[in-house]
């Protein structure tokens, strides 16, 4: 089991590094169209072949990994910060503030988030620049993904609120704000870190969902979701099975995340 976890961790690190250095590893820009060789088979020039527009699939996969693997943690960070604010304050303060905050998280969790994301994307103009679509997609993920984490953080903060050391700190004359920031928050750090890591694969998958529907990062920027859209063309996949590479990579990366993350590691 230990070996498996290590292998998974090593694989994730390798993918991250490959994605980071995509510019060095692939000589071809992800948007360059080789007009005379669309739907090409894998070759020495195009490792995974090309798509119907003649764009190099390997290059698109690596650049797509960069976007998905860097922005999913960013979205996760945003969601965790919101969760820490809402859950931490609610759990620590207790009373009506906690009831309102928990009601809010219940509401947020019961919302059909996929439709909400669709609606939010639909409100935005269609001719959004690729960079803007990228930022908006992941900001939306962050803003909609905090509720479950907030509940966990809230429960943790509630337990700390009644602890002896909070009582001792108050008996020493520390203000509520300082007790929250200096005494409670350091104890929530392991839980926050766990929530941050657990959210990353969730956001990778959510982005893929949106991408398949064409509402994620817009062309010509590649992302895993956008690349999965290429699988709609089944005859092209049959002709070139290497086109399944994005799906395979997504599956393996998300599985590796699940292997590496173990709940007991985050126990404070």
């Amino acid at each position, binding site marked *: 089991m230990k070996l498996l976890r290590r292998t998974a961790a090593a694989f994730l690190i390798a993918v991250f590094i490959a994605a980071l250095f995509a510019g060095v590893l692939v000589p071809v820009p992800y948007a360059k169209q080789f007009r005379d060789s669309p739907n090409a088979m894998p070759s020495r020039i195009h490792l995974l072949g090309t798509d119907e527009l003649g764009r190099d699939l390997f290059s698109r996969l690596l650049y797509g990994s960069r976007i998905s693997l860097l922005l999913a943690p960013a979205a996760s960070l945003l969601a965790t910060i919101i969760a820490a604010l809402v859950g931490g304050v609610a759990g620590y303060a207790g009373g009506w503030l906690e009831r309102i905050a928990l009601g809010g998280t219940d509401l947020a969790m019961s919302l059909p988030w996929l439709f909400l994301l669709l609606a939010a994307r639909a409100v935005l103009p269609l001719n959004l620049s690729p960079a803007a679509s990228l930022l908006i997609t992941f900001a939306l993920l962050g803003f909609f993904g905090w509720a479950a984490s907030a509940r966990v953080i809230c429960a943790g903060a509630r337990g700390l609120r009644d602890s002896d*050391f909070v009582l*001792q*700190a108050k*008996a*020493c*004359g*520390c*203000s509520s704000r300082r007790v929250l920031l*200096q005494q409670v928050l350091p*104890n929530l750090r392991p839980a926050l870190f766990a929530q941050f890591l657990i959210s990353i694969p969730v956001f990778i998958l959510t982005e893929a969902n949106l991408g398949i529907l064409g509402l994620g990062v817009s062309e010509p920027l590649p992302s895993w979701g956008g690349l999965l859209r290429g699988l709609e063309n089944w005859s092209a996949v049959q002709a070139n099975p290497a086109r399944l590479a994005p799906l395979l990579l997504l599956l393996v990366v998300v599985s590796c995340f699940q292997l590496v993350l173990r709940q007991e590691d985050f126990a404070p």
Partner: protein
Amino acid sequence: MTRTTSLLSLCLSADYPDRPNVLRTLALEMYSGEILGLIGQSGSGKSTLALAILRLLHLHKGNQRGEIWFQGRNLMGVSEREMRSVRGRELGLVLQSPLSALNPALRIGTQLEEAWRAHVKGSDDAARKAILETLLSVSLPAERSFLRRYSSQLSVGQAQRVIIAMAILHRPSLLIADEPTSALDTITQSEILRLFAQLSRELRMGILYISHDLLSVAALCHRIAILHAGQILECAPPAQIFGAPQHVYTQKLVAALPRGALLDSDGDKVSSVVASHEVEESVKPSVESSIPDQIPSIVR
């Protein structure tokens, strides 16, 4: 000990939502520099009183009424902001379980610094100097390496000393110790008792020493108050509590002490020894005290 200046004079009632009348117009008076032992069985309202004096009972969802006259003002009448400047600076609290009273995620130094910064805005050097001095006064190593430790790296006795250091950092005039030794083994217990006697002597600090153990506080305290069902039944010097208890409950309490403990090695009643007790000499560091048969050596 001069009994002229009153340090604390209170009359309190307290309730919890599920338990009414935990304190029933409890009246208590303490003098400057006095060590008052508050004895009561569990559920008698000891800890409730400790929190109520600091006006922190709301943290346990409790509700308190009455008056707390402390150094010339009624604490029940002051604002929360003013109360916060009293907590830790003029009123110190030591809790029962030292390991849970220390924050597991913070270094000892950070926690002491937090307690210091709650009342003093000053340089890091001033804070460190005050902290190291206080560590020395509770017989802890005044070293950087010690301040970098976490509570899990301390023994229970050390942890309790750190809590005491936190509580006396600002030299409060009243220290409330809520069963500070009940989580400790007998040797550590006698060391901590000795520390309290020493602090009271050196800092002229009043100590409200809360315990369920009549014997362990007999030698330390100038007076002992017996708390039962939210009221003080009797408050008298140890000699009278042991020698001529007035209230029926106190008589039962004294009678319930182990027989051996009441007899000196000569067969005299402990009360005669206690009558001439001196706090300065009272709590001797005695290794024998770990042997149950010789509990009276603490009393001596």
